[in-house]
């Protein structure tokens, strides 16, 4: 129960950060990606603020042997740069550039009742399920 409350709080701060930084506005996201046109540099500050914070804070947190409310840290174990990583990231990038939504801001926009975000999230969940089904067919 405490674990769920902690996750709820972390999620709320994360969502507040997305909206405060205007990541939730696809037009601003697309303006940032439009380097050859009317470039809007704001999102560089979002990414810089977030990454500098995690660079420092993750180091401090991981210095501890274990998390406060769980038995161990669950970090990604994969190390190899393989085709799924690169192809997946490229496909994601094309989708991000087409709509101006990545998963977090799209979920917030959908929760706020923005039509384009609701449509995008429905398709995003379908895309994820589709990938899950195709990968289950292969030995991994």
């Amino acid at each position, binding site marked *: 129960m405490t*674990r*769920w409350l*902690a*996750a*709820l709080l*972390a*999620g*709320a701060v*994360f*969502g*507040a*950060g*997305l*909206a*405060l*930084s*205007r*990541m*939730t506005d696809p*037009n601003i996201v697309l303006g940032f*990606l439009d*380097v050859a046109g009317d470039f*809007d540099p704001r*999102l560089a500050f979002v990414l810089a*603020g*977030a*990454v500098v914070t*995690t*660079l420092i*804070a*993750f180091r401090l*947190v991981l210095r*501890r042997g*274990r*998390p*406060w409310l*769980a*038995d161990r*840290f*669950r*970090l*990604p174990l994969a190390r190899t740069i393989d085709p799924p990583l690169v192809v*997946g*990231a*490229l496909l994601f*990038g094309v989708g991000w*550039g*087409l709509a*101006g939504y*990545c*998963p977090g801001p799209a979920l917030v926009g959908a929760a*706020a009742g*923005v039509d384009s975000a609701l449509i995008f999230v*429905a*398709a*995003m969940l*379908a*895309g*994820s399920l589709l*990938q899950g089904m195709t990968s289950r067919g292969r030995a991994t």
Partner: protein
Amino acid sequence: MNFGSALAGGVLIGLAAAALLLFNGRIAGISGIVNGLATKDRDELGWRIAFLLGLAGGGVLVMKLTGQASASPASLPVLLLAGLLVGFGTRLGSGCTSGHGVCGLGRLSLRSLVAVIAFMAAAILTVYVIRHVPGATA
């Protein structure tokens, strides 16, 4: 333009990711959290739903307070295609802007750096084609 709120929002995102790692030992990657919802493990499901409810609540609250209601300029077919690509791609590539960008770069993960370069390049190129190549529209 307000760079201060962009920077402050970024710091909040970073602090939230650090809090989830400190409390729950988990990486705050939104696509990963969503994809992990397909589980029968009650505790595993619980923290994911709680995080996503918090994300929606905190995000919607600040959107309302700052008077945001902007929609994507993309048309319906393009929105559907974009959503499919983002859902499929983030699962295949094991992460999105938050998992690879905010958390992966914070952990100095080479895999995440490669992913970030790939998705940023693809996104920039896509916007370039839509906005600056004659005849292409979204």
